[in-house]
């Protein structure tokens, strides 16, 4: 026993030294996280209890009034509805397209590599470029897409200026811009599924479709969950494409939560506190969804 104790002593010291070194290594990231995430998060909560302008001047403490006000603000409630609708359409479509394309492009042939590269191009384009380009393509008067539709016999094509279609256009453009990255992530996940599983399933008589559902899909679930979670969060925070493509219109039909928060913060006087309160609500909402998804993800992995 004594020998065991004495032999553990040097290991303990070494362990502690290692731990100290590890803390040193994570210190830069931790400090940045504290400065740029944790402190602003606390500060933003303070801002949300104030009535103040964008320059943080003339602050007046109003307690939780801004939070109460948000839930009686019909525009905010409308923006939540629009964000949820957008998310409910965009995320499933994005995931389905990502899974199907990744299944088709998983083999490392030259053709597949080229197609993957092409699909990835919109991802590296700036949202501003994407928004402006699609605005021109879909322009009701000079847009090339509008022209093609008119050639096919469609009349009164005005996709961006119709409250009934504008949100779907935003969904389409957002998927067009980001499906490349979903595909790439899932392709690499599929490539990491061991070949032995496919061979074993083939011996058991599984066809391609059965292999897809019983081998491929379970094998890519960690990546799938990661994508699902990040897409969900990204959709709830949709801003850049809406801002450049429709500006939130027509008639606020594409005003998502973040677009409304931005408008409130920067286009109104003295409403930075209120805008921040809405941001806090969005933050809480996203956090709850993230926790639920983590829980489901953990449970699925255990199963």
């Amino acid at each position: 026993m004594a020998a065991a104790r004495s032999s553990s002593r040097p290991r303990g010291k070494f362990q502690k030294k290692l731990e100290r070194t590890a803390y040193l290594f994570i210190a830069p990231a931790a400090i940045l996280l504290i400065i740029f995430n944790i402190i602003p998060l606390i500060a933003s909560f303070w801002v949300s209890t104030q009535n103040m302008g964008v320059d943080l001047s003339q602050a007046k403490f109003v307690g939780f009034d801004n939070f109460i006000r948000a839930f009686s603000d019909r525009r905010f409630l409308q923006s939540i509805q629009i964000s949820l609708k957008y998310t409910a359409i965009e995320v499933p479509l994005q995931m389905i397209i990502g899974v199907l394309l990744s299944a088709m492009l998983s083999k490392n042939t030259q053709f597949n590599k080229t197609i993957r590269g092409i699909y990835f191009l919109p991802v590296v384009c700036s949202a501003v470029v994407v928004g402006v380009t699609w605005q021109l393509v879909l322009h009701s008067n000079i847009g090339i897409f509008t022209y093609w539709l008119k050639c096919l016999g469609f009349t009164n094509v005005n996709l961006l200026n119709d409250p009934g279609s504008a949100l779907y256009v935003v969904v389409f453009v957002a998927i067009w811009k980001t499906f490349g990255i979903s595909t790439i992530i899932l392709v690499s996940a599929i490539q990491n599924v061991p070949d032995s599983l496919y061979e074993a399933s083939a011996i058991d008589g599984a066809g391609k479709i059965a292999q897809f559902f019983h081998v491929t899909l379970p094998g890519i679930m960690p990546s799938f969950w990661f994508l699902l979670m990040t897409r969900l969060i990204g959709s709830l925070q949709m801003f850049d494409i809406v801002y450049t493509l429709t500006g939130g219109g027509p008639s606020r039909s594409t005003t998502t939560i973040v677009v409304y928060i931005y408008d409130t913060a920067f286009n109104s006087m003295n409403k930075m506190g209120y805008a921040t309160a809405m941001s806090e609500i969005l933050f809480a909402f996203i956090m709850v969804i993230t926790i639920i998804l983590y829980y489901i993800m953990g449970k699925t992995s255990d199963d």
Partner: protein
Amino acid sequence: MKKRLVVLLTAAMAACAVAGCGSSSSGSSGSTSSTTAGTAAATEAAAETETEAAAESTTENAEPSNPNATKVVFWNSWTGGDGDTLQALVDKFNTSQSDVYIDMTRTTSFADMLQTNMPTGEAADLILLNSNDFTKYSSYLLPIDDIWDNTSLKKEDFSDTYLNLCYNNDQLYGIPFQISTYMLYYNKDLLEQAGYGEDEIPTTFDEWTEAAEKITALSTADKPIYGSGLFYCYNGQNQAAIQRFGTDYIITGDEENGFKANLLDNEAFANAMIWMKNLYDNGDNPKEKDIDSMMAAGQIGLEINGGWLKGTLDASDINYGIAKVPTVTGDDQDDWALGDVNCFYITSSASDEEKAAAEKFIEWWMTGEGLEASDVTQQVDYSGMTPNTEWSVSMCYLNAYTPTVESADYQGNQVLVDLTPSDSAQVQMFAAPGTLFWSDVATCQADYVQDWVFNGPTNPTYDDVQSFFEPYQEDLESYISEYY
């Protein structure tokens, strides 16, 4: 338990990290974001948008000839058809002397740049700002009462009505630059093809409707044409039309007697909205937000807009004319100005030296020598005009500087003379002067016009207007109670 705690903390951390990410891109980019709230996220994304937009709309200034010249950074939002003329005039100033160099940035992101840079003292030294926004930024502006001592400008040379909008607590902060007047642009060829004579320009809103119908009938399968060109989302243009129905301000009254929202029980407003809705529903007005380019392409018969459209139309080959915005009866309403005033303001970012240099530029603008005739495209002989006069005459901007208004060049421009309001005219468009919530009112106006255009009933009646606009009346009343 420990595992759950780890999951919970990780989830909280992830949500914290990604809450700041307003990008629509997937999580791989989200994790790199370092802000914590949606507002900050939006600003970040908007900043990217704006930076690029600013880069697109910014004109390079020539380098100063004198490296010791005092540099005055000058920001404005004149990115329309008038921007090139403004740039040419600034260039003229820079080459006409060597003591002061104006480094101008014209950007569509002007308002956002101001809001983010003013508090940090990194904004431009000199800006052009709508007087409605004066109260919003007054704490970041420098009083310039000394301009009367430092330059040859005289207070009595400016219209009291407009100069008074530049005062706060008896201190002068701005010098009127232009009155951003809204006018009726009409396509002469389309009116002629619709059977109108050369001088037959709609002067009433009924005539507008009638002409719009006739002009729209000229459409072909290849080229759709619309008689009327209202923008559904352009609040300034819409308000210019609505106000000419005799609606009064959206918010009336004053601080002493109280303010009042003015949408309901307002027959003129109801008539304006019914007129507008019918134009859209009849198909004589496109539901389009890019009306200017359609006007420049010869697809719009009648459009209301400001002088900033003139440069665009001059560059196109359409045959157009300018007249006063119609009224209900055709009688003039010169007790209402058709636009807001924009002023030069010097910000607290300017040093004493930069402030003096900015005042020198303002003095030159009012009294100096402008461009030669060949320098701009508006087909006006600019010889001997001051930059201020040249700006007014070439762009049809009304002016608040009396020597300019009384000049032969200004008086020789019939459009300017016709547009000039009376001395006692109301000089704002949305809310009564001095209201703190102008931007909220303007946003609310954009909301209710769009909602009405897209979701209002067809063939609306006065009662429809009353019920439809009730929530907006409540919104406006809530602004009043919020600020006063």
